[in-house]
């Protein structure tokens, strides 16, 4: 018996995988960026299905609203990148072979691991999950240090990127 949940999952899975295939198969970089938006959207759907609406919203805001839009902008302002000059794939067969080999290995890895058979968590989803997440990010006994290191990382990248990208005098 197929449940509604499974149907919805299949739909989002097809969106995600189809989008991902579109990204690598598209000949124009611009089209690839659009396919990427579709894949991101599928992932957001999967988060919803996992009862994680907060992550679904983040996925929409950050990945589609931020990263995808930025990518599209970058493609549009880069000269001569909109029209492809030559076939995208130089090593199509080799790349496909490598990807396939990796997929088979990964499949074996996942299906042969007995520990994946853990029971799905039961019970109610913690309504305070978001609050706990927020507290964990700034609690010195949890993720305060990684959180601060991430901000140093962003500072370093921001300053460095501005330096590298500024106009030559």
């Amino acid at each position, binding site marked *: 018996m197929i449940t509604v949940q499974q149907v919805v999952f299949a739909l989002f899975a097809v969106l995600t995988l189809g989008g991902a295939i579109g990204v690598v198969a598209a000949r124009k970089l611009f089209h690839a960026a659009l396919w990427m938006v579709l894949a991101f959207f599928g992932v957001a759907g999967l988060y919803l299905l996992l009862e994680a609406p907060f992550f679904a919203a983040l996925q929409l805001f950050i990945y589609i609203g931020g990263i995808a839009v930025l990518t599209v902008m970058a493609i549009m302002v880069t000269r001569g990148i909109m029209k492809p000059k030559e076939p995208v794939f130089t090593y199509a067969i080799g790349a496909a072979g490598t990807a396939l080999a990796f997929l088979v290995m990964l499949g074996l*890895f996942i299906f042969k691991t007995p520990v994946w058979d853990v029971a799905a968590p039961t019970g109610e989803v913690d309504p305070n999950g978001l609050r706990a997440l927020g507290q964990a990010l700034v609690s*010195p006994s949890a993720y305060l240090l990684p959180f601060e290191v991430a901000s*140093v990382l962003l500072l370093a*990248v921001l300053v*460095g990127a501005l330096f590298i990208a500024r106009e030559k005098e």
Partner: protein
Amino acid sequence: MEQEIFQLSYLQAIVPELLLLVVGLLLLGVDLVLPEARKRELSVWAAAGFAIVALASPLAYLGEPQFVFGGMIGSEPLNAIFAFIFAMAAFLVALLSRDDERLEPSGVYYALIAFAVIGMDLMVAATDFIMLYLALELTGLSLYLLSAYDRRSRFSVEAGMKYFFYGSVASAVMLYGITFIAGLTGQTLYLGVRYLFASAVMPAWFGMGVLVLILAGVGFKVAMVPLHTWAPDVYEGAPTPVTAFLSVTSKAAGVMALMRLLVWIWGSLPSHAEMTSLIAALAIVTITLGNLFALRQKSFKRLLAYSSITQAGYVLVGVTALSPMGLTAVGFYLAIYAVTNIAAFTVLVLVSNRSGSDWLRDFVGLQQRSPALALALLVALLSLGGVPPFAGFVGKILLFAAALKSGFVWLVGAALANVLISLYYYLNAVRMAYTRAEEPVEPLSIPVASRWVLVIATAGIILGTILAYPLYHLLERAAMVWF
């Protein structure tokens, strides 16, 4: 969520990192107010800052080994020692950067060095996968930007791009490996994962599979074969002081992070013989390939690049031991290697200031031009080659002894054969420096900042032998904490 009382000792455990952040921000600020003509003075500011960090780094050890910040990092003697080594390397490189005439250092340059050191300190100290990943990325991103720093040079920009692309893929693969661990164990703390590995809930081959993925990220930092392909081009293209910096510090941080993962987590697997064999195989391939390519180089910078791949391989020989002795030897060798390589790169910077290139043939007649510089090169290269009485010899003996004690006779045999091969290209460079030039040569004076770098580094190479016993003892006591 239990209420946590914030302890002041947490802050003491990250004193070196906090100071580095202050130094980085100050340098960015000073850069804004300093007139263009006085920009070279920034080097002294930066060096002073790094020297203070080095002096303060023992504070990071709180007296007894413990976890701080909820187990994200440990406060251990070994972390404090490496915080000192990284700050010293940054100090020497900051001084050296002043004298590289092809480089125009600014506040951004030194701030990025400071940020990279924060990342490396935390890579060594991390006891949580999320912390490790962020530290690795902070180190990586700062170093990519430093490699591309000389925007006028096509090679520098290419180096930065290559480093960035390879590095992003490597750390993405590593992150993928971490997701397996987090997904299966629900843990990212090393000790939690260790418990699940040791209790044999995880099949051994699962552990190996994840290890291979994680090795991608850490092995990239170490420039371990087959993840070494970026190294020669990046080392050659990046500004020489940056090459000196990343060839010693990022490698050391990578090795220590790897060693901690192996000792703490993978070593607890009921059977880990395949794992040590894997590392041993990678070590010997790394040593041999680095050597074979180094033999054919005409550029001294590229020669040092391949030589540093080989040196990382020697360190991996010590890693295979997975014993307190192995860890002590690895720590000792990384410290010695840092001063030795920086000395060699300093000579290169001074020679290429005049010649404008990195060719080995530019070294001909160096002894006539500056006997002191030729002598410094001799000491550095003999130490890299493992010739007594220099510290590189002591370091190699310790590494090989640790591996022998763990039963890797074939590995040590193969590594010894490679030491002999490497002597050929090290001595060849020395021979160039001591060959008399046919046409008359101009004398080469050593600027004052580089003079200090050479004095400190050469002193380190010689003191490493004289003080080998107390240094070994210090490191041994620090290493015992892990076992």
